[in-house]
């Protein structure tokens, strides 16, 4: 009889924080593209006699994250020294919040097949990133390593869950939701490809009886994962590996594993027995941190809205349906863009339709990103103006479809685009000769209308529009025709 194996997954996420400066010194935080060892100072190089100063912005971000993850923020905390020798650690220890994390005992709701489920967060803590080692071989075959300290001291936040994941799907749902939260708070880039966000999964399996009794078996930790796909593959691989071992009557050794992307498998790195003794103790160079209720409340009240909160607001106060609300809230920047346009032209449907229709089509066709809408060639003010003109009839539908791509092409506003394209609204007063022509050429239709068949009016309007190459406002045309025909 085959056993029904149950899956247990816990997750650890490290994310760099988007502060101006490093965790404990004034060096710029953003080192992307910088020459090695240029974003450094005596403090982040751990020079003799140097002391850390806590980055207040990083603390605020930590509290913000803790609150968004429904954690309790303790009244005080401190940094501790985590001691281990390695050339990526210039001081020989890393400062980290060990005993008193900045957030504890939270959760985030994830959507599963069975409905909404809370995924518990054990802790959120702040620490400093390490330097980056590169292992190289010279032309003569000599192995050597280089240390780049630009990353040393970059603020890092670690978020550790309880073992609440029951499948790879749930793990990924948690990670996606967490990433959205961090990005919407504006405290992390969420970029995994360059290591700004790093994932680790702790995986074990157990029988249904063990699950009922809350018993856990030996777990394996897969470290340094840099995509949701890989985390899914790694979890699924480990699940199979554990089950196979147990079914063969073997034991699973508690271990740290790495991911071998080439072969799509996990590889053993070290066992629990080989783990470091980090000899933590409180950093004597920093006084304990204290957080008053007022400070925490101020952060609670001013923290940016999260994606799911924005969606709910769009539904409830803007009257948008779920589908459109989700699309408009797909990125923090896009929702801000939408709201900025709405601030200038308060017609929700019109603005939403412009953005979710032709606008998104343009963005997608051009391979543009909505992560930072400030980089788009078209501004929110342009969108508001476009929606306004379309709504008022200053732009006809065909003109609208002509103008928007042009604005994307040239990065210009509505009026310059219209001028360049030679689009102007045909004034009613100038339509006389055209009306004469159309009425003369369509005597049949005129007669039908005058005998009460007003449905034919649409045909006549269409003829006028055709003759003006779409520049007339169809509403004006209809009104003029009614006047001429006395209907």
């Amino acid at each position, binding site marked *: 009889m085959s056993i029904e194996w149950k899956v247990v997954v816990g997750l650890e996420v490290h994310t760099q924080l988007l502060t101006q400066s490093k965790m404990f010194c004034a060096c710029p935080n953003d080192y992307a593209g910088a020459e090695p060892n240029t974003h450094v100072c*005596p403090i982040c190089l751990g020079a*003799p*006699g140097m*002391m850390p*100063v806590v980055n207040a912005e990083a603390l605020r971000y930590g509290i913000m994250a803790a609150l968004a993850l429904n954690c309790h923020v303790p009244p005080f905390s401190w940094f501790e020294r985590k*001691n281990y020798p390695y050339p990526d650690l210039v001081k020989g*220890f890393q400062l980290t919040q060990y005993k008193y994390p900045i957030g504890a005992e939270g959760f985030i709701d994830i959507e599963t097949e069975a409905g909404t489920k809370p995924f518990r967060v054990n802790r959120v803590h702040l620490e400093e990133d390490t330097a980056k080692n590169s292992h190289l071989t010279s032309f003569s075959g000599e192995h050597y390593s280089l240390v780049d300290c630009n990353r040393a001291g970059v603020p890092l936040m670690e978020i550790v869950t309880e073992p609440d994941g029951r499948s790879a799907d749930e793990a990924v749902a948690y990670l996606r939701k967490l990433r959205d939260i961090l990005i919407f708070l504006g405290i992390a880039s969420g970029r995994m490809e360059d290591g700004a966000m790093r994932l680790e999964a702790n995986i074990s399996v157990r029988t249904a009886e063990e699950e009922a009794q809350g018993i856990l078996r030996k777990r394996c930790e897969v470290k340094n994962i840099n995509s949701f796909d890989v985390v899914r593959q790694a979890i699924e691989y480990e699940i199979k590996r554990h089950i196979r071992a147990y079914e063969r009557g073997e034991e699973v050794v508690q271990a740290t594993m790495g991911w071998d992307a080439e072969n799509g498998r996990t590889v053993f790195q070290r066992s629990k027995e080989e783990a470091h*003794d980090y000899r933590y*103790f409180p950093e*004597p160079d920093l006084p304990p941190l204290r957080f008053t209720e007022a400070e925490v409340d101020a952060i609670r009240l001013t923290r940016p809205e999260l994606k799911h909160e924005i969606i709910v607001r769009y539904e409830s106060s803007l009257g948008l349906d779920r589908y459109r609300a989700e699309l408009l809230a797909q990125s923090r920047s896009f929702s801000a863009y939408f709201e900025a346009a709405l601030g200038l032209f308060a017609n929700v449907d019109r603005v939403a339709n412009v953005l979710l229709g032709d606008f998104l089509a343009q963005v997608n066709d051009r391979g543009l990103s909505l992560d930072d809408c400030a980089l788009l060639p078209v501004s929110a003010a342009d969108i508001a103006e476009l929606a306004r003109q379309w709504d008022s009839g200053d732009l006809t539908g065909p003109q609208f479809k002509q103008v928007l791509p042009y604005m994307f092409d040239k990065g210009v506003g509505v009026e310059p685009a219209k001028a360049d394209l030679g689009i102007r609204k045909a004034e009613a007063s100038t339509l006389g000769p055209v009306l004469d022509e159309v009425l003369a050429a369509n005597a049949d239709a005129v007669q039908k209308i005058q005998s009460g068949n007003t449905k034919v009016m649409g045909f006549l309007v269409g003829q006028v529009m055709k003759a003006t190459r779409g520049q007339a406002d169809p509403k004006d045309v209809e009104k003029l025709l009614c006047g001429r025909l006395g209907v």
Partner: protein
Amino acid sequence: MSDLTHLTIEQAAAALRAGETSSVELTQAVLARSEQVEPTIASYILPTPEQALAMAAAADQRLQAGDAPLLCGIPGAIKDLICTEGVQTTAGSRILEGYRPIYDAFVVKQLRAAGYVMTGKANLDEFAMGSSCETSAYHPTRNPFCPDCVPGGSSGGSATAVAADQAFFSLGTDTGGSIRQPASLCGVVGLKPTYGRVSRWGVIAMASSLDQVGPFARTVRDCAAVAECISGRDELDSTSSARLVPDYRAACGRDIKGLRIGVPREYFIDGMEPAVSASVRAAIEQLVSLGAEAVEVSLPHTEYGLSTYYVIMPCEVSANLARFDGIRYGVPKPGETMWDAYSNTRGAGFGAEVKRRIMLGTYALSAGYAEAYYVQAQKVRTLIRDDFAKAFEQVDAIVGPASPTTAFPLGAKLDDPVQMYLSDVFTLPASLAGLPGICIPCGFDEQSKPIGLQLIGRHWEEETLFSLSYAFEQSTPWSLPSNRARITVGGGL
């Protein structure tokens, strides 16, 4: 002027302003004095005569322009644990030989802003670990009053430079007594300020929760002047205090009548040299005769001070010294593997006492032992703090010896760490409690070796210590130049 090197800072400052001398002349005088005594005493790891003369010339210009601070043009020595921009800073260790920091420590910046003249980098026990200046990787320093004896430590060179008139003042650091004990053994005034009063930024860390920079000088007022210059908030040292720095010299001369001084019964123990005990008791009587009121107090956890200190300090040492691995800091010694290179570098670069403390600290923080050692020691540290807090409900200052002995012969305790550690038995508790302590000369033993009196104050109450010390100094002969005539090195004074 014939005896420029004997002047106090205030006398020298007055002479500079009166045009009776120049900073260059003062500097030349102390450099000449150094030429005489340095071969015997060896106060410096690195004398810096050229810098000194250049700084003196600049100071003279500033003095001429008027409105120069008190310390402008005054020669002073800097303990070689304190970073000086572009000037080798070794911490007394081979591992930092040739290391030139790219920054001045906060205290050095303060002195530089005041226009001081740096005479050199003073010798110390390696990484400030020792009580005799003998663990310096470079050379021992000898006591000017008795060249066969040690000057105390770890700030031995800073104490001797001032005692032997090689500088008008100096900076030392005190972790468990490293200013007060050498001040006692060398017959000078030394202050360990309240923890947090002086920035530690740029001071190579030994035990971060205990280290504090402080001045040595030949008089209480001089000591107060230097203390005032180096004190104050530093944004780069989060443990430094934003409290205003009082005018410490103004506290010198304040009436001490009615001040209550506590005499802890635990500070008069067996094994203390009789001359020390007698001089300290006489000093207490002198303070009483000046109007202070002596009260017996008890600091019941004093006996645990030494063991508490020798757990906490090595724990912090083990982390603070981890960076000296030859990768970024420390003279590298290559090896087959990275781990070999680490071992070779640290094996060759550190001396025995440093290794002993790194090993002690690593052990005391290890999984399974941290609770019994580090955590337990922190609890006892709180009890020691509480002892003082309780005593300070009754008294304004605590008085006792700074060291149980006078200067001991070189080599006498080098092979017996516990005997060496006992040198600091009276200074450690105030360090553990973060309290300010001052040591002032209060007599000589039968061999003319100096004896020091220690006064411990409440947190941030250095002023009380200056008032008491100044009253004592002014009413006793111990700090007079005539007493320092007992110094015979280099032809005497």
